[in-house]
Each structure stands twice: as C-alpha cells, then as structure tokens.
C-alpha cells in the first residue's frame, strides 16, 4: 500500500503556517457552486459530517440509511481526486452503524469503479459489541449522559444496535497509514475536522472551536445555509469564509453559532476534553469573513466515548386526514372520546399492548398541552391517528378501527352523515414498520481511544 503523506502545509502569505479545511454538507444535497468555489482555495483536506442523531432512533434501529445521495458522494470523491487531498467523512449513512457504513462504502466502491477513481480507502467501524458493554458495566466504567437511567445488563441485551461516537484518533491513525479517503461510522461532529490539525500540532482549543463551527457548514453565516465553508486555522486564530458570496460570517453570527443545538454555548464536551469558549473573541476581517481567537481546551482526566443505542418498542400504523365541515370541527373532541371508548371495549385500555394518539393540527397538534391558545380551532383541521403496538397486525387493527370510527362517528347535530374525514390519497392507512427508542445514552470510560473502532484499509 502506498504511503501518501499527511497534508503538507506551506506558510501563508505572511510567513505563518495555516491549515485550510473545506467543510461539505453531508446531507440534503451538496450545493455544487460553493464546492467549486471552495476548491479554488486549495484546502489541505475536505471534511463532511454525514449523519446525525437528530432525526431519531429509526435510522439507527432499522439500518436504513439517509442523508447523502449518490450525487453527494460522487461530488465529494470528484473533489478529492481533483485536489489530491484527504477526504474525511464521519457518521456515514446517516446513523453510522454497520449497515449504514457498508451502504456508503458500497456506493463509494461502485462510483469509483464506474468513474476510474483511485485512492487508499480507510473504513472505520463504530458499532459496539454487546459483550464489551456488559464487561464495562461490570467494571463500573459506564455512566449516564444527561437525564437517562443508569445502564443495566437488560438494557444492553434489549438493544438492537449501539454505536460509539469516535473521537479524532481513529481518523489520525488512518491518515498516518496513508489513507486518502476515510469513511467512518458514528463520529463526533468535530472528529473529521480536528484530526489533521492536531497531527500538525495546531492549538487544540482553536482546532476544536473551528471544527464545531464548520461542521454545520454555512449555518454560522448570515443568512445561514448549507453552502460549503472554508475554515483556515493558524497558530493563534482561525478565519471563516462561506463559499457562497451572499452569506457573511460576521462576529455575531459566528458567536451565535455556539448556541445552535448546544445545551451550553461556553462548554462543549468531547471524548478527550472540553472546549471552553468563555474567552473567545470574534472579530470581522471583512464584512463577510470572521476571525476567532482565544478558545481554550481543557483535557479530560478520563477519556470517554458516548454510546448511542436503540431498542425496538413495537410497530406503528397510522392514518391521516383533513376535516373541513364545521360540525365535525366543532365536535372533534367528542368524536375522539367516542372512538377511544370503542377501542378500549375491543382491545382493553391503552397500556403495554397498544398506544393510540390523535394529533389534531389546527388545534394543538404541535404543542399539545403547551398550546397557549386554549380552545381555539381553525376552520380546517388535519388529524393524525397514530398507533404503536406490540405487533404490526395489532397496530393495523387498532388503527383501522380508530380511523373507521372517526370517519363514521356520530354526534348530536351532525350534518356530515356520509363521512367526517377527507383522506388525501389511497392507501388511507399505513403500516410504518418497527419503532425504536434510545435506551443506551451513556459514556464509556476508555483507556485507548482506538480500542473500540477497528479500521480496514482497501486500495481502490
């Protein structure tokens, strides 16, 4: 296997060294114009965060991929081949488990074969073996992260899939072995962006802060968006420039980014330590380029890896329809109550076997009990009848009865005696398959940051 060098750095114009990272959005479609613009800056490496936990447990549990399309992967590989710099992609296939990683690697292989791309590929696995977790639990090396119960052996046993969020170390190991394209399973959103800078001895605080901002591409700009962003890291500061000229990285917009999706804008925890932005300064270089300095890194006493795992809670079926007739709108509460009574008579009370909910948009669908406009209803409603049950057949049966009884439910003063619901299309009822929830959300103490994350090397 050839040993391509890690990114080489030359001095910037004024004699100081810098490392340039081009961050590419990992899902939702890469805006190509900003990718081309970014490439003109000759970045030392390309990075992409290809996944997230935000869209819920379903992707991790089912193995279904989301996020980057074949077009996106092709654009990333094309850029890598044109520039001959490393491409580091984390949380592949949206959830970063084995099926997600395998799917992404398969697309990479196929596109490369079709288009004649050649590179050294590293594939980094992030799924965690259950026995490893059982042992860690027995050794007292697991702790809950946030408001979740302590982990039990039962919870580990029940889990369908567990991934660990890898830090930068596996990426660094792969770069050290000459990898030119790295496709990794579940990673911290900073890992693919700090790996090269840390290997080159750049400041940890600045490297992590820059990574934290650019991993969301141009969300830190005004107006925010998904265009690629160039981050230039130097010894005592970093500079940010969105690659879409209409987007400006201003001191306030970059400072405000520390708020985005974070529980605390000042302290952000990573496997090996904590980023502290209490002393960070944000300045304007131009009206659309911002400069950040002063960010600090506090190393952790104990290296920890965040584990995310899911278990299956049942199966879902749902129906959805509009309501416009004023007599039905007026009486939707009574209709729901009547339908529930009928379901309970047939299937027993809601509980372990099934759950049933009516989500009434136009009244309080989004906020439920938090809705401040109590009692207000629109002239039109949209009702989602959602059922979770132990089997798909039971979910379907409960949903079918609920839907049918809502459609034909009577009430005093009813005019709409042919039907209460306007279904948007056929089918009127949908089996949505397995439903998952997070049951592992814990920190695992580790002595070796590489231990959980095996790496395969392939010549493409």
């Amino acid at each position: 296997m050839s040993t391509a060098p890690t990114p080489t750095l030359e001095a910037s114009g004024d004699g100081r060294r810098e490392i340039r990272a081009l961050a590419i959005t990992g899902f939702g479609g890469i805006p190509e114009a900003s990718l081309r613009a970014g490439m003109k800056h000759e970045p030392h490496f390309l990075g992409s965060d290809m996944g997230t936990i935000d869209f819920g447990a379903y992707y991790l549990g089912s193995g279904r991929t989301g996020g980057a399309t074949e077009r996106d992967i092709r654009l990333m590989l094309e850029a890598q081949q044109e520039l001959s710099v490393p491409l580091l992609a984390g949380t592949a296939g949206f959830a970063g488990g084995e099926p997600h990683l395998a799917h992404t690697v398969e697309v990479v292989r196929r596109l490369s074969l079709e288009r004649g791309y050649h590179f050294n590929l590293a594939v980094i696995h992030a799924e965690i073996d259950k026995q490893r977790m059982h042992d860690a639990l027995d050794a007292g090396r697991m702790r809950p992260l946030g408001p979740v119960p302590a982990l039990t052996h039962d919870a580990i046993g029940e889990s369908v899939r567990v991934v660990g969020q890898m830090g930068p170390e596996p990426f660094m190991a792969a770069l050290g072995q000459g990898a030119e394209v790295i496709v990794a399973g579940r990673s911290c959103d900073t890992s693919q962006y700090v790996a090269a800078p840390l290997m080159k001895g750049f400041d940890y605080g600045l490297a992590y802060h820059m990574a934290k901002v650019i991993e969301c591409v141009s969300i830190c700009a005004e107006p925010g968006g998904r265009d690629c962003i160039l981050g230039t890291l130097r010894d005592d500061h970093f500079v940010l420039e969105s690659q879409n000229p209409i987007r400006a990285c201003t001191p306030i917009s970059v400072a405000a980014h520390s708020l985005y999706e974070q529980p605390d804008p000042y302290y952000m925890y990573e496997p090996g330590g904590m980023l502290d932005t209490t002393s960070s300064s944000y300045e304007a270089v131009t009206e659309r380029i911002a400069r950040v300095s002063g960010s600090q890194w506090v190393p952790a006493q104990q290296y920890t890896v965040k584990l995310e795992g899911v278990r299956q809670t049942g199966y879902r079926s749902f129906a959805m329809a509009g309501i416009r007739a004023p007599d039905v709108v007026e009486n939707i509460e009574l209709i729901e109550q009547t339908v529930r009574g009928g379901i309970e008579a047939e299937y027993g009370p809601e509980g372990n076997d099934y759950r049933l909910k009516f989500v009434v948009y136009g009244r309080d669908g989004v906020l439920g009990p938090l809705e401040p406009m109590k009692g207000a209803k629109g002239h039109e409603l949209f009702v989602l009848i959602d059922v979770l049950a132990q089997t798909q057949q039971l979910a379907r049966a409960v949903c079918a009865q609920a839907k049918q009884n809502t459609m034909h439910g009577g009430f005093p003063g009813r005019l709409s005696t042919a039907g209460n619901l306007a279904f948007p299309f056929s089918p009127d009822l949908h089996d949505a398959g397995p439903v998952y929830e997070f049951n592992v959300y814990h920190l695992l103490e580790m002595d070796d940051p590489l231990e959980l994350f095996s790496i395969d090397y392939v010549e493409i």
Partner: protein
Amino acid sequence: MPKLRDLARIIRSKNAKPFVLTLDMLFATREAYDQVVAAPELLPEAIAALYGMPVAAVRVIPYPAARAIKITMHRWVPAGSFDDRDLLGAQQAVPLFDLEISPRPIEVVEPALEGTPR
C-alpha cells in the same frame, strides 16, 4: 409591557440531542438584551412554570458575546418517542413569543449630602 417577540430578533428552539431542549433568544440591540436578561420573567422559576417543568430541569444562560440568552431544559419526553409531537424540537419556543417583559427597574441614586465624602 412589551412582548418578547417585539424585543427579540430571533426566538427559536431545537433539541440538543434527544433528551434536552434548548431555546435561544437573540437581540438586535444591547438595550433589548439588557432589558430581557434582567427581567424576572426570564428567571428559571418563571420559565419552568411556563413550560410545566421542575425548576431543576431548567437553566438560563446569558450569552452576551452574541447578545443572546439560552434556555436549556430537559425534554418532557424523549424526542421521537410516542408521546412526542416535534422530532427536532423546532417549534417549541411558542410559549416565549408572547411573554410580557417587565421594564428595567429605574436605578435610584441617593443625592450626596453636602460635605459628605462620596
């Protein structure tokens, strides 16, 4: 009294992972930021009551670098669970929109007596 939606340029919510909701208010002027950050309506107790959450579950974090205030709270149900209605938590800031904000208390400065050292 002015409502928060009249004082803030941005009021938004989002999950910070599945178990935590975070709400941000960003202000266009230092004056607006100063009024809201000091208001009793922004105390954790008041926010907790607004959201029906225990006080221990709520943190209010001033962030002057961005003229912003962050509220972080434990989600009442995990995101994406059966009882959840908002997978990304992006539409949960509404209770803040019409929050009426008390004006800043006027500082009273005692006039010095003649001959008294200040």
